[in-house]
Protein backbone atom coordinates (compact mmCIF):
# COMPACT_ATOMS: atom_id res chain seq x y z
CA UNK A 1 0.00 0.00 0.00
CA UNK A 2 1.08 3.56 -0.63
CA UNK A 3 -0.51 6.42 1.20
CA UNK A 4 -0.18 9.94 -0.08
CA UNK A 5 -0.64 12.58 2.57
CA UNK A 6 -2.81 15.65 2.11
CA UNK A 7 0.33 17.68 1.49
CA UNK A 8 1.67 17.99 -2.04
CA UNK A 9 3.84 15.17 -3.29
CA UNK A 10 5.48 14.27 -6.57
CA UNK A 11 2.99 12.67 -8.96
CA UNK A 12 4.40 11.14 -12.17
CA UNK A 13 2.07 11.62 -15.14
CA UNK A 14 2.55 10.26 -18.68
CA UNK A 15 0.87 12.73 -21.02
CA UNK A 16 0.95 12.68 -24.82
CA UNK A 17 3.86 10.26 -24.71
CA UNK A 18 5.97 12.39 -22.39
CA UNK A 19 6.70 11.69 -18.75
CA UNK A 20 6.12 14.58 -16.35
CA UNK A 21 6.51 14.87 -12.59
CA UNK A 22 4.14 17.33 -10.97
CA UNK A 23 3.97 18.35 -7.32
CA UNK A 24 0.31 18.04 -6.37
CA UNK A 25 -2.04 17.51 -3.46
CA UNK A 26 -4.17 14.34 -3.73
CA UNK A 27 -7.35 16.41 -4.13
CA UNK A 28 -6.17 17.96 -7.43
CA UNK A 29 -8.11 16.77 -10.45
CA UNK A 30 -6.37 15.66 -13.60
CA UNK A 31 -8.01 18.62 -15.32
CA UNK A 32 -6.47 21.11 -12.90
CA UNK A 33 -3.12 19.34 -13.11
CA UNK A 34 -3.19 19.70 -16.90
CA UNK A 35 -4.37 23.29 -16.97
CA UNK A 36 -2.79 24.84 -13.88
CA UNK A 37 0.41 22.85 -13.47
CA UNK A 38 1.39 21.74 -16.97
CA UNK A 39 0.13 24.61 -19.15
CA UNK A 40 -1.91 22.15 -21.18
CA UNK A 41 -4.96 24.39 -21.38
CA UNK A 42 -6.62 22.72 -24.37
CA UNK A 43 -8.81 20.63 -22.08
CA UNK A 44 -11.49 23.00 -20.84
CA UNK A 45 -13.26 23.37 -17.51
CA UNK A 46 -16.95 23.83 -18.26
CA UNK A 47 -18.95 22.45 -15.37
CA UNK A 48 -16.30 20.70 -13.22
CA UNK A 49 -18.95 18.16 -12.21
CA UNK A 50 -18.94 15.60 -14.99
CA UNK A 51 -21.86 17.02 -16.91
CA UNK A 52 -20.58 18.91 -19.96
CA UNK A 53 -17.75 16.85 -21.51
CA UNK A 54 -15.47 19.80 -22.30
CA UNK A 55 -12.65 18.18 -20.28
CA UNK A 56 -12.76 14.88 -22.23
CA UNK A 57 -9.33 13.23 -22.48
CA UNK A 58 -8.19 9.67 -23.17
CA UNK A 59 -6.81 7.44 -20.46
CA UNK A 60 -5.40 4.13 -21.67
CA UNK A 61 -7.16 4.74 -24.96
CA UNK A 62 -10.65 5.39 -23.56
CA UNK A 63 -12.43 8.71 -23.41
CA UNK A 64 -13.05 9.87 -19.85
CA UNK A 65 -13.66 13.09 -17.94
CA UNK A 66 -10.57 14.79 -16.51
CA UNK A 67 -12.62 16.83 -14.02
CA UNK A 68 -13.79 13.72 -12.14
CA UNK A 69 -10.41 11.99 -12.34
CA UNK A 70 -7.92 12.68 -9.58
CA UNK A 71 -4.45 13.29 -10.97
CA UNK A 72 -3.01 10.90 -8.39
CA UNK A 73 -5.32 8.16 -9.66
CA UNK A 74 -4.22 8.79 -13.27
CA UNK A 75 -0.57 8.27 -12.39
CA UNK A 76 0.81 5.21 -14.13
CA UNK A 77 -1.68 5.44 -16.98
CA UNK A 78 -1.36 6.77 -20.53
CA UNK A 79 -3.05 10.16 -20.84
CA UNK A 80 -3.75 11.85 -24.18
CA UNK A 81 -5.08 15.40 -24.46
CA UNK A 82 -6.08 17.54 -27.42
CA UNK A 83 -2.46 18.77 -27.54
CA UNK A 84 -1.35 15.23 -28.34
CA UNK A 85 -3.36 14.81 -31.55
CA UNK A 86 -1.42 16.83 -34.10
CA UNK A 87 1.78 15.56 -35.64
CA UNK A 88 3.88 18.71 -35.57
CA UNK A 89 2.00 21.21 -37.72
CA UNK A 90 -0.09 18.44 -39.27
CA UNK A 91 -3.51 18.47 -37.61
CA UNK A 92 -5.39 15.26 -36.88
CA UNK A 93 -8.01 14.54 -39.59
CA UNK A 94 -10.78 15.23 -37.06
CA UNK A 95 -9.28 18.62 -36.21
CA UNK A 96 -9.14 19.45 -39.93
CA UNK A 97 -12.74 18.27 -40.39
CA UNK A 98 -13.98 20.48 -37.53
CA UNK A 99 -12.41 23.48 -39.30
CA UNK A 100 -13.67 22.45 -42.73
CA UNK A 101 -17.24 21.90 -41.52
CA UNK A 102 -17.31 24.90 -39.20
CA UNK A 103 -18.18 22.56 -36.33
CA UNK A 104 -18.05 25.18 -33.59
CA UNK A 105 -18.97 28.74 -32.81
CA UNK A 106 -17.44 29.91 -29.53
CA UNK A 107 -15.10 26.91 -29.50
CA UNK A 108 -15.08 26.29 -25.77
CA UNK A 109 -16.40 22.73 -26.01
CA UNK A 110 -14.44 21.91 -29.16
CA UNK A 111 -11.44 20.10 -27.73
CA UNK A 112 -13.76 17.81 -25.75
CA UNK A 113 -15.94 17.31 -28.83
CA UNK A 114 -12.91 16.30 -30.90
CA UNK A 115 -11.58 13.92 -28.24
CA UNK A 116 -14.98 12.22 -28.18
CA UNK A 117 -15.53 12.37 -31.94
CA UNK A 118 -12.38 10.40 -32.73
CA UNK A 119 -13.41 7.71 -30.25
CA UNK A 120 -17.00 7.54 -31.50
CA UNK A 121 -15.62 6.35 -34.85
CA UNK A 122 -13.06 4.00 -33.26
CA UNK A 123 -15.75 2.48 -31.05
CA UNK A 124 -17.92 1.77 -34.07
CA UNK A 125 -20.67 4.06 -32.79
CA UNK A 126 -20.82 6.41 -35.79
CA UNK A 127 -22.76 4.31 -38.31
CA UNK A 128 -25.79 6.62 -38.41
CA UNK A 129 -26.57 10.20 -37.40
CA UNK A 130 -28.74 8.75 -34.64
CA UNK A 131 -25.77 6.76 -33.29
CA UNK A 132 -23.49 9.78 -33.51
CA UNK A 133 -25.99 11.89 -31.56
CA UNK A 134 -26.43 9.20 -28.92
CA UNK A 135 -22.74 8.50 -28.39
CA UNK A 136 -21.76 12.20 -28.52
CA UNK A 137 -24.44 13.12 -25.96
CA UNK A 138 -21.86 13.51 -23.20
CA UNK A 139 -20.44 16.55 -24.98
CA UNK A 140 -22.69 19.55 -24.63
CA UNK A 141 -22.38 22.45 -27.10
CA UNK A 142 -24.02 25.61 -25.82
CA UNK A 143 -23.86 27.14 -29.28
CA UNK A 144 -25.69 24.07 -30.64
CA UNK A 145 -23.22 23.40 -33.45
CA UNK A 146 -24.42 19.80 -33.43
CA UNK A 147 -25.35 19.47 -37.15
CA UNK A 148 -21.87 20.62 -38.17
CA UNK A 149 -20.20 18.42 -35.56
CA UNK A 150 -22.08 15.43 -37.00
CA UNK A 151 -21.02 16.46 -40.50
CA UNK A 152 -17.37 16.57 -39.46
CA UNK A 153 -17.64 13.13 -37.88
CA UNK A 154 -19.38 11.70 -40.98
CA UNK A 155 -16.62 13.11 -43.14
CA UNK A 156 -13.82 11.50 -41.14
CA UNK A 157 -15.78 8.25 -40.86
CA UNK A 158 -16.35 8.03 -44.62
CA UNK A 159 -12.92 9.26 -45.65
CA UNK A 160 -11.04 6.93 -43.35
CA UNK A 161 -13.24 3.86 -43.67
CA UNK A 162 -14.17 4.16 -40.04
CA UNK A 163 -10.62 4.51 -38.69
CA UNK A 164 -9.19 8.01 -38.50
Amino acid sequence: MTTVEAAATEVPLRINGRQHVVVLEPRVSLLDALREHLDLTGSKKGCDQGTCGSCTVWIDGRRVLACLTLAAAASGHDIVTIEGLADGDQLHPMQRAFIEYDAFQCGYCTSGQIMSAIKVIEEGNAATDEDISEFMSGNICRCAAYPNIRAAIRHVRDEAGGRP
Partner: protein
Amino acid sequence: MRPLTYSRAADVQDAIALATANQASAFLAGGTTEVDLIRAGISHSEHLVDINELPLRGVEDLPDGGLHIGALARMSDVARTPSVVERYPAISRALLLGASEQLRNMASLGGNLRQRTRCAYLRDGVSPCNKRELGSGCAALDGFNRGHAILGTSEHCIATHPSDVAVALVAFDAVIRTVGPDGERAIPFDDFFLLPGDTPQLEHPIALGELIVGIDVPGAPIGRGSVYLKFRDRQSYEFALVSVAAAIEVDDNLVTGVRIAMGGVGTKPWRARRAEAALVGRPANETSFRQAAAAELAEAVVREHNAFKVELAQRAMVRGLVHSLNRSQS
Protein backbone atom coordinates in the same frame (compact mmCIF):
# COMPACT_ATOMS: atom_id res chain seq x y z
CA MET B 1 -12.46 21.04 -2.44
CA ARG B 2 -11.31 20.08 1.03
CA PRO B 3 -7.92 18.41 1.53
CA LEU B 4 -7.80 14.64 1.09
CA THR B 5 -5.44 11.80 1.70
CA TYR B 6 -5.15 9.08 -0.90
CA SER B 7 -4.01 5.47 -0.86
CA ARG B 8 -3.78 2.77 -3.50
CA ALA B 9 -4.84 -0.63 -2.27
CA ALA B 10 -2.83 -3.62 -3.45
CA ASP B 11 -5.48 -6.24 -2.73
CA VAL B 12 -8.91 -6.64 -1.12
CA GLN B 13 -7.63 -7.08 2.43
CA ASP B 14 -5.34 -4.08 2.02
CA ALA B 15 -8.32 -2.01 0.83
CA ILE B 16 -10.41 -3.02 3.82
CA ALA B 17 -7.58 -2.27 6.26
CA LEU B 18 -6.94 1.14 4.70
CA ALA B 19 -10.62 2.07 4.73
CA THR B 20 -11.24 0.80 8.24
CA ALA B 21 -8.36 2.86 9.62
CA ASN B 22 -10.16 6.15 8.94
CA GLN B 23 -13.80 6.79 9.92
CA ALA B 24 -14.12 9.28 7.06
CA SER B 25 -12.79 7.03 4.32
CA ALA B 26 -14.36 6.02 1.03
CA PHE B 27 -13.37 3.67 -1.74
CA LEU B 28 -12.42 5.29 -5.03
CA ALA B 29 -13.34 3.38 -8.19
CA GLY B 30 -14.41 5.44 -11.20
CA GLY B 31 -14.82 8.53 -9.04
CA THR B 32 -17.83 9.76 -10.96
CA THR B 33 -19.96 9.96 -7.83
CA GLU B 34 -17.46 10.29 -5.01
CA VAL B 35 -15.22 13.02 -6.48
CA ASP B 36 -18.29 14.96 -7.54
CA LEU B 37 -19.89 14.76 -4.08
CA ILE B 38 -16.71 15.63 -2.21
CA ARG B 39 -16.26 18.70 -4.41
CA ALA B 40 -19.88 19.68 -3.82
CA GLY B 41 -19.40 19.37 -0.06
CA ILE B 42 -22.02 16.61 0.22
CA SER B 43 -19.62 13.74 0.88
CA HIS B 44 -17.39 14.30 3.88
CA SER B 45 -14.79 11.71 2.92
CA GLU B 46 -11.31 12.71 4.01
CA HIS B 47 -9.43 9.64 2.86
CA LEU B 48 -9.84 7.90 -0.48
CA VAL B 49 -8.76 4.31 -0.94
CA ASP B 50 -8.15 3.75 -4.65
CA ILE B 51 -9.28 0.21 -5.45
CA ASN B 52 -8.71 0.27 -9.19
CA GLU B 53 -5.77 -2.11 -9.08
CA LEU B 54 -7.84 -4.88 -7.47
CA PRO B 55 -8.60 -7.80 -9.84
CA LEU B 56 -12.38 -7.27 -9.82
CA ARG B 57 -13.10 -6.34 -13.45
CA GLY B 58 -14.17 -9.62 -15.00
CA VAL B 59 -17.56 -11.03 -15.97
CA GLU B 60 -17.59 -14.78 -15.33
CA ASP B 61 -20.04 -17.64 -15.79
CA LEU B 62 -21.76 -19.07 -12.72
CA PRO B 63 -22.54 -22.82 -12.61
CA ASP B 64 -26.31 -22.18 -12.75
CA GLY B 65 -26.05 -20.32 -16.05
CA GLY B 66 -25.89 -16.94 -14.37
CA LEU B 67 -23.09 -14.40 -14.29
CA HIS B 68 -20.72 -12.93 -11.74
CA ILE B 69 -19.94 -9.31 -12.54
CA GLY B 70 -16.83 -7.93 -10.85
CA ALA B 71 -17.45 -4.77 -8.85
CA LEU B 72 -14.83 -2.83 -10.79
CA ALA B 73 -16.12 -3.84 -14.23
CA ARG B 74 -16.91 -0.64 -16.11
CA MET B 75 -20.43 0.12 -17.31
CA SER B 76 -19.33 0.34 -20.95
CA ASP B 77 -17.52 -3.02 -20.78
CA VAL B 78 -20.35 -4.90 -19.06
CA ALA B 79 -22.89 -3.50 -21.53
CA ARG B 80 -20.94 -5.04 -24.43
CA THR B 81 -19.98 -8.35 -22.82
CA PRO B 82 -21.51 -11.05 -25.07
CA SER B 83 -22.79 -13.21 -22.19
CA VAL B 84 -24.60 -10.19 -20.70
CA VAL B 85 -26.09 -9.19 -24.06
CA GLU B 86 -27.31 -12.73 -24.73
CA ARG B 87 -28.58 -13.75 -21.31
CA TYR B 88 -29.79 -10.42 -19.90
CA PRO B 89 -30.33 -7.89 -22.69
CA ALA B 90 -32.16 -5.66 -20.20
CA ILE B 91 -28.93 -5.27 -18.19
CA SER B 92 -26.95 -4.32 -21.29
CA ARG B 93 -29.61 -1.91 -22.48
CA ALA B 94 -29.99 -0.27 -19.06
CA LEU B 95 -26.25 0.33 -18.94
CA LEU B 96 -26.15 1.87 -22.41
CA LEU B 97 -29.09 4.17 -21.65
CA GLY B 98 -27.37 5.53 -18.53
CA ALA B 99 -25.01 8.52 -18.38
CA SER B 100 -22.65 9.24 -21.31
CA GLU B 101 -19.94 7.09 -22.88
CA GLN B 102 -17.22 8.98 -21.00
CA LEU B 103 -18.95 8.32 -17.69
CA ARG B 104 -19.70 4.70 -18.65
CA ASN B 105 -15.98 4.22 -19.38
CA MET B 106 -15.18 5.43 -15.87
CA ALA B 107 -18.02 4.23 -13.67
CA SER B 108 -17.85 0.80 -12.06
CA LEU B 109 -20.79 -1.49 -11.36
CA GLY B 110 -20.07 -1.45 -7.63
CA GLY B 111 -19.96 2.34 -7.64
CA ASN B 112 -23.15 2.50 -9.65
CA LEU B 113 -24.95 0.74 -6.81
CA ARG B 114 -23.49 3.16 -4.25
CA GLN B 115 -24.31 6.32 -6.22
CA ARG B 116 -26.54 8.81 -4.46
CA THR B 117 -29.80 10.37 -5.53
CA ARG B 118 -29.75 13.27 -7.96
CA CYS B 119 -32.32 15.14 -5.86
CA ALA B 120 -31.30 18.78 -6.30
CA TYR B 121 -32.18 19.56 -2.70
CA LEU B 122 -29.59 17.08 -1.44
CA ARG B 123 -26.97 18.41 -3.81
CA ASP B 124 -27.49 22.15 -3.40
CA GLY B 125 -26.03 21.94 0.10
CA VAL B 126 -28.43 24.49 1.61
CA SER B 127 -32.04 23.31 1.28
CA PRO B 128 -33.67 21.28 4.03
CA CYS B 129 -32.75 17.66 3.32
CA ASN B 130 -33.08 14.75 5.73
CA LYS B 131 -30.53 12.72 3.82
CA ARG B 132 -27.90 15.42 4.24
CA GLU B 133 -28.94 16.63 7.68
CA LEU B 134 -31.44 14.46 9.51
CA GLY B 135 -34.22 16.53 11.04
CA SER B 136 -33.81 19.49 8.70
CA GLY B 137 -36.87 18.51 6.66
CA CYS B 138 -37.44 17.70 3.01
CA ALA B 139 -37.59 20.59 0.55
CA ALA B 140 -38.79 18.29 -2.21
CA LEU B 141 -42.17 17.60 -0.55
CA ASP B 142 -43.49 21.03 -1.53
CA GLY B 143 -40.74 22.01 -3.93
CA PHE B 144 -40.10 21.20 -7.56
CA ASN B 145 -40.70 17.46 -7.39
CA ARG B 146 -41.28 16.51 -11.03
CA GLY B 147 -38.50 13.94 -10.91
CA HIS B 148 -39.29 12.55 -7.48
CA ALA B 149 -40.55 9.18 -6.35
CA ILE B 150 -44.15 8.03 -5.98
CA LEU B 151 -43.47 4.59 -4.48
CA GLY B 152 -41.59 3.77 -1.29
CA THR B 153 -41.63 7.36 -0.11
CA SER B 154 -41.96 8.65 3.44
CA GLU B 155 -42.82 12.01 4.95
CA HIS B 156 -39.07 12.51 5.38
CA CYS B 157 -37.80 11.81 1.87
CA ILE B 158 -39.14 11.32 -1.67
CA ALA B 159 -35.81 11.15 -3.50
CA THR B 160 -35.67 8.82 -6.50
CA HIS B 161 -32.95 6.22 -6.84
CA PRO B 162 -31.12 7.20 -10.04
CA SER B 163 -29.56 3.96 -11.31
CA ASP B 164 -30.75 2.28 -14.51
CA VAL B 165 -28.77 -0.94 -14.25
CA ALA B 166 -29.94 -1.52 -10.68
CA VAL B 167 -33.50 -1.72 -12.04
CA ALA B 168 -32.54 -4.52 -14.42
CA LEU B 169 -30.48 -6.27 -11.73
CA VAL B 170 -33.26 -6.27 -9.15
CA ALA B 171 -35.58 -7.86 -11.70
CA PHE B 172 -33.20 -10.83 -11.87
CA ASP B 173 -32.77 -11.26 -8.08
CA ALA B 174 -29.11 -10.28 -8.23
CA VAL B 175 -27.00 -10.74 -5.09
CA ILE B 176 -24.33 -8.28 -3.96
CA ARG B 177 -21.14 -9.86 -2.65
CA THR B 178 -19.09 -7.92 -0.14
CA VAL B 179 -15.97 -8.44 1.92
CA GLY B 180 -15.46 -6.44 5.08
CA PRO B 181 -13.72 -6.45 8.44
CA ASP B 182 -16.18 -9.14 9.58
CA GLY B 183 -15.74 -11.35 6.52
CA GLU B 184 -17.82 -12.06 3.44
CA ARG B 185 -21.51 -11.35 2.96
CA ALA B 186 -24.06 -12.03 0.22
CA ILE B 187 -26.78 -9.36 0.28
CA PRO B 188 -29.94 -9.90 -1.80
CA PHE B 189 -30.36 -6.97 -4.13
CA ASP B 190 -33.68 -5.86 -2.71
CA ASP B 191 -32.18 -5.73 0.81
CA PHE B 192 -29.20 -3.63 -0.28
CA PHE B 193 -31.36 -0.56 -0.95
CA LEU B 194 -33.15 0.79 2.12
CA LEU B 195 -36.48 2.61 2.02
CA PRO B 196 -36.20 6.10 3.55
CA GLY B 197 -38.80 5.58 6.30
CA ASP B 198 -37.69 7.47 9.40
CA THR B 199 -34.02 7.04 8.53
CA PRO B 200 -33.52 8.56 5.08
CA GLN B 201 -29.85 9.19 5.85
CA LEU B 202 -29.24 5.42 5.77
CA GLU B 203 -29.17 4.08 2.22
CA HIS B 204 -27.35 0.73 2.41
CA PRO B 205 -26.62 -1.89 5.10
CA ILE B 206 -22.89 -1.48 4.49
CA ALA B 207 -20.33 -1.20 7.28
CA LEU B 208 -17.24 0.99 7.33
CA GLY B 209 -14.57 -0.71 5.25
CA GLU B 210 -17.01 -3.18 3.69
CA LEU B 211 -16.21 -3.48 0.00
CA ILE B 212 -18.53 -4.61 -2.78
CA VAL B 213 -16.48 -7.18 -4.70
CA GLY B 214 -19.07 -8.32 -7.20
CA ILE B 215 -22.64 -8.95 -8.25
CA ASP B 216 -24.07 -12.42 -8.87
CA VAL B 217 -26.92 -12.60 -11.36
CA PRO B 218 -28.62 -15.99 -10.98
CA GLY B 219 -29.27 -18.05 -14.07
CA ALA B 220 -32.69 -17.19 -15.51
CA PRO B 221 -33.69 -18.33 -19.02
CA ILE B 222 -36.48 -15.73 -18.92
CA GLY B 223 -33.75 -13.09 -19.04
CA ARG B 224 -32.96 -13.77 -22.70
CA GLY B 225 -36.17 -12.06 -23.75
CA SER B 226 -35.85 -9.17 -21.33
CA VAL B 227 -36.15 -5.52 -22.32
CA TYR B 228 -35.35 -2.18 -20.71
CA LEU B 229 -37.27 0.94 -21.71
CA LYS B 230 -36.47 4.43 -20.45
CA PHE B 231 -38.62 7.56 -20.70
CA ARG B 232 -37.10 10.96 -19.97
CA ASP B 233 -37.29 14.66 -20.71
CA ARG B 234 -34.53 14.52 -23.31
CA GLN B 235 -33.55 11.64 -25.50
CA SER B 236 -30.08 10.94 -24.17
CA TYR B 237 -27.82 11.57 -21.18
CA GLU B 238 -30.68 12.11 -18.75
CA PHE B 239 -32.17 10.32 -15.77
CA ALA B 240 -35.42 8.42 -16.15
CA LEU B 241 -38.80 9.89 -15.42
CA VAL B 242 -39.93 6.30 -15.67
CA SER B 243 -38.06 3.20 -16.78
CA VAL B 244 -39.01 -0.44 -16.85
CA ALA B 245 -37.16 -3.75 -17.01
CA ALA B 246 -39.48 -6.53 -18.13
CA ALA B 247 -39.25 -10.21 -19.03
CA ILE B 248 -42.11 -12.60 -19.64
CA GLU B 249 -42.57 -16.32 -20.31
CA VAL B 250 -45.77 -17.64 -21.82
CA ASP B 251 -47.20 -21.13 -22.36
CA ASP B 252 -50.37 -21.57 -24.37
CA ASN B 253 -50.89 -17.82 -24.11
CA LEU B 254 -50.87 -17.92 -20.30
CA VAL B 255 -48.17 -16.13 -18.31
CA THR B 256 -45.92 -18.72 -16.66
CA GLY B 257 -43.18 -16.40 -15.48
CA VAL B 258 -42.64 -12.67 -15.32
CA ARG B 259 -40.07 -10.19 -14.01
CA ILE B 260 -40.83 -6.50 -13.75
CA ALA B 261 -38.85 -3.68 -12.12
CA MET B 262 -39.15 0.08 -12.44
CA GLY B 263 -36.86 3.08 -12.24
CA GLY B 264 -37.66 6.76 -11.80
CA VAL B 265 -40.69 6.06 -9.62
CA GLY B 266 -39.25 4.52 -6.44
CA THR B 267 -37.00 5.56 -3.61
CA LYS B 268 -35.14 2.36 -4.44
CA PRO B 269 -34.86 0.26 -7.62
CA TRP B 270 -38.45 -0.92 -7.62
CA ARG B 271 -39.29 -4.58 -8.09
CA ALA B 272 -42.94 -4.72 -9.13
CA ARG B 273 -43.92 -7.79 -7.14
CA ARG B 274 -47.63 -6.94 -7.01
CA ALA B 275 -47.77 -6.70 -10.77
CA GLU B 276 -45.86 -9.95 -11.13
CA ALA B 277 -48.23 -11.74 -8.74
CA ALA B 278 -51.24 -10.35 -10.60
CA LEU B 279 -49.96 -11.68 -13.93
CA VAL B 280 -48.91 -15.27 -13.32
CA GLY B 281 -51.53 -17.63 -14.76
CA ARG B 282 -53.33 -14.84 -16.58
CA PRO B 283 -53.67 -14.46 -20.37
CA ALA B 284 -50.69 -12.68 -21.89
CA ASN B 285 -52.48 -9.68 -23.34
CA GLU B 286 -52.67 -5.94 -22.82
CA THR B 287 -55.77 -6.18 -20.64
CA SER B 288 -53.90 -8.34 -18.11
CA PHE B 289 -50.81 -6.15 -18.36
CA ARG B 290 -52.87 -3.03 -17.70
CA GLN B 291 -54.53 -4.61 -14.64
CA ALA B 292 -51.16 -5.72 -13.28
CA ALA B 293 -49.71 -2.25 -13.76
CA ALA B 294 -52.69 -0.71 -11.97
CA ALA B 295 -52.17 -3.09 -9.04
CA GLU B 296 -48.54 -2.00 -8.71
CA LEU B 297 -49.30 1.71 -8.80
CA ALA B 298 -52.37 1.52 -6.55
CA GLU B 299 -50.46 2.81 -3.54
CA ALA B 300 -48.55 5.55 -5.31
CA VAL B 301 -48.27 8.77 -3.31
CA VAL B 302 -48.00 11.79 -5.56
CA ARG B 303 -46.93 15.40 -4.99
CA GLU B 304 -47.69 18.56 -6.94
CA HIS B 305 -45.47 17.95 -9.98
CA ASN B 306 -45.08 14.19 -10.24
CA ALA B 307 -48.65 12.91 -10.47
CA PHE B 308 -48.16 12.23 -14.18
CA LYS B 309 -45.82 9.39 -13.28
CA VAL B 310 -48.70 7.18 -12.13
CA GLU B 311 -50.13 6.92 -15.64
CA LEU B 312 -46.74 7.04 -17.36
CA ALA B 313 -45.45 4.19 -15.20
CA GLN B 314 -48.45 2.01 -16.05
CA ARG B 315 -48.12 2.65 -19.77
CA ALA B 316 -44.38 2.01 -19.59
CA MET B 317 -44.95 -1.29 -17.81
CA VAL B 318 -47.53 -2.39 -20.39
CA ARG B 319 -45.24 -1.43 -23.24
CA GLY B 320 -42.29 -3.23 -21.64
CA LEU B 321 -44.33 -6.41 -21.26
CA VAL B 322 -45.57 -6.21 -24.85
CA HIS B 323 -42.01 -5.74 -26.12
CA SER B 324 -40.74 -8.65 -24.06
CA LEU B 325 -43.65 -10.82 -25.23
CA ASN B 326 -42.84 -10.00 -28.85
CA ARG B 327 -39.18 -10.75 -28.25
CA SER B 328 -39.87 -14.08 -26.53
CA GLN B 329 -42.16 -15.16 -29.37
CA SER B 330 -39.80 -14.18 -32.19
